[in-house]
């Protein structure tokens, strides 16, 4: 299936990507079968599909957390297949932000420290300006008063908003979110989704969101549906109901 044409500049391009596990063993299984996908700058894409369709595997490959078995993958035009682990890590640091299903904040650090962690990883220190930037982001997701709280003191929705602020703190061109509302009640889920859309609107960051929730998928700009490791549907959504 052909990718949806985009007028924007290609941010990531996957070309006939295959991914197999347990290669050479009796239980070898191919999860992605020659999948091609192109995501332009500024797109807000929902990645949907039944369990076991390969959504998380695809997201991990896009996020440079897993290597593909074969195919081509380019980020901002540069191929990444041949990069070693260290180069992949640096690429991930500079290009990608992550929001995971289970919040995945560092429990030993406060909300503010979690958000500034990417600066600490990058340079070994956090400048006052960077700390201020993180505070602004936390305020933007409605957590101005929770900066010094530990994750355990925050609700699931609040934790996910901290994760969104953290994913955006280095201003990456692409944020990958793996079921960011999967563990939240409907109200919190809507709240988080509104924040994601707002950040997209304000900052022009591209988002790829894996979700099981058709209601949320319908509020994205584009929906890519995976079935059995291949793209079954890839279409733009014209009528977006914002702020529902």
């Amino acid at each position, binding site marked *: 299936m052909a990718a949806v044409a985009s007028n924007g500049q290609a941010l990531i391009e996957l070309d006939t990507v295959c991914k197999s596990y347990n290669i050479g063993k009796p239980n070898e299984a191919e999860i992605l079968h020659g999948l091609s996908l192109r995501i332009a700058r500024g797109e807000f894409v929902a990645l949907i599909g039944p369990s076991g369709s390969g959504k998380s595997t695809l997201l991990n490959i896009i996020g440079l*957390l897993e290597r593909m078995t074969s195919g081509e993958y380019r980020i901002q035009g540069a191929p990444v297949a041949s990069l070693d682990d260290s180069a992949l890590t640096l690429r991930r640091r500079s290009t990608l932000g992550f929001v995971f299903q289970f919040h995945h904040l*560092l429990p030993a650090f406060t909300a503010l420290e979690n958000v500034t962690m990417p600066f600490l*990883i990058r340079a070994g220190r956090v400048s006052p300006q960077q700390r201020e930037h993180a505070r602004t982001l936390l305020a933007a997701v409605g957590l101005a008063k929770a900066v010094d709280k530990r994750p355990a003191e925050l609700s699931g929705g609040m934790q996910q908003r901290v994760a969104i602020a953290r994913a955006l703190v280095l201003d990456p061109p692409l944020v990958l979110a793996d079921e960011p509302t999967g563990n939240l009640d409907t109200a919190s889920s809507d709240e988080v989704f509104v924040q994601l859309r707002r950040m997209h609107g304000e900052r022009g960051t591209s988002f790829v969101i894996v979700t099981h929730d058709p209601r949320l998928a319908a509020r994205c700009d584009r929906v890519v549906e995976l079935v059995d490791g291949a793209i079954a549907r890839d279409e733009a959504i014209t009528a977006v109901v914002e702020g529902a």
Partner: protein
Amino acid sequence: MGSSWLGFETRVAVRFLREGRLQTLLIMVGVAAGVAVIAYISALITGLQANTFNKTLGGQPHVSIRPLDDVVAPARLPEAGSNTISDSQPRAQRLRSVANWQSLVPALERLPTVAAVSAMVSGGGLALRGEATQSVALSGVELDAYDRVVKLREKVVDGVARLAPGEAIIGAELASDLGLRPGDRLTLRTGNVSETVRVTAVVDLGVRELNRRSVVVPLRLAQSLLGLPGGVTSLDLTLVDVWSAKDFAQQLRAEYPYRIESWQETNAQLVSALNAQSVSTGLIRAIVLVVVVLGIASVLVVSVVQKRREIGILRAMGATRGQMVRVFLVQGAIVGAIGSLIGLVLALLMIAVFTALVRGADGRPLFDIVLPLALALQVAGIATVCGVLAAIAPARRAAAMDPAQAIRI
């Protein structure tokens, strides 16, 4: 923006340790106990050895130079092609002087390894006071030079060490046996020669038999008493490094035709005992270190398993494998360093308890135990390095963790 060395690693390592407080406490107590045992045993053995060393060698030179023994030369050389059976009886050794000792002393004093040289005349005699008679070992010395070799002045228990003509310093047991105190007179007799001397000081040489026999007199008086005018029976040397004595004696033997002996050769059994002690201490230290390393490693391995998700998140956020390795190495170093400090404090307490409780018959501590700063730093340094080494395996495990897998858990 400049980067801060180990800023990320240190911050995360400290938080990980603080988060697992109980584990961190247990591991630090383990390190502290290990370091305390190592430091205490080391200080105890060092103190014990120093005490044994001082007691045994305090009155002995590091190297002594004496004339060669008289030997019996065969009366007739065996003829070529013939076998001769002969039997020679060893000669009785007469008191003889070290040849050319006056020129040898300044030559030895010029050597950088030599700290002090003292010429001595020694031989047997009798000490008489009233009805009492006691056989004694006479030593004729120049007091200042002799003091540099055997630190005689430090051993004075009564009186003031002085050796003007007609004066003598005697051992504590001898003073007791003959009822002598500083200022009292004593007659010394050898063969047909007798001299009366005044006791200036009583010394405790650390060994009862030495205290019972020792009489130290001026060099000239001993020469006169022992019939060796102008001669000395030995040159006693103190070296800068006591442990170099054996090699130095070997070197001197190659150059000079004298009987030259190091303290190690004269006290072979003591050296063996000290070596055995050192080996035992080394073994105990090594075993305790292994236990400490295994303790740190096992707790950190558990920590890596517990922190899989955090490791995955950090890796996903762009932390490199190297950074994750260093996070755990820094944890090992912190645990090692803080555990060492606590351990050193414990060792000092143990030393204080030992000194307070274990005392000799006279109520004084058996011997001095101190924890030298160099030893403390060495033990703490080794424990910290061991902490880092112990963290290597867990750290590599953390770095090898697949972030995608770790996050899914």
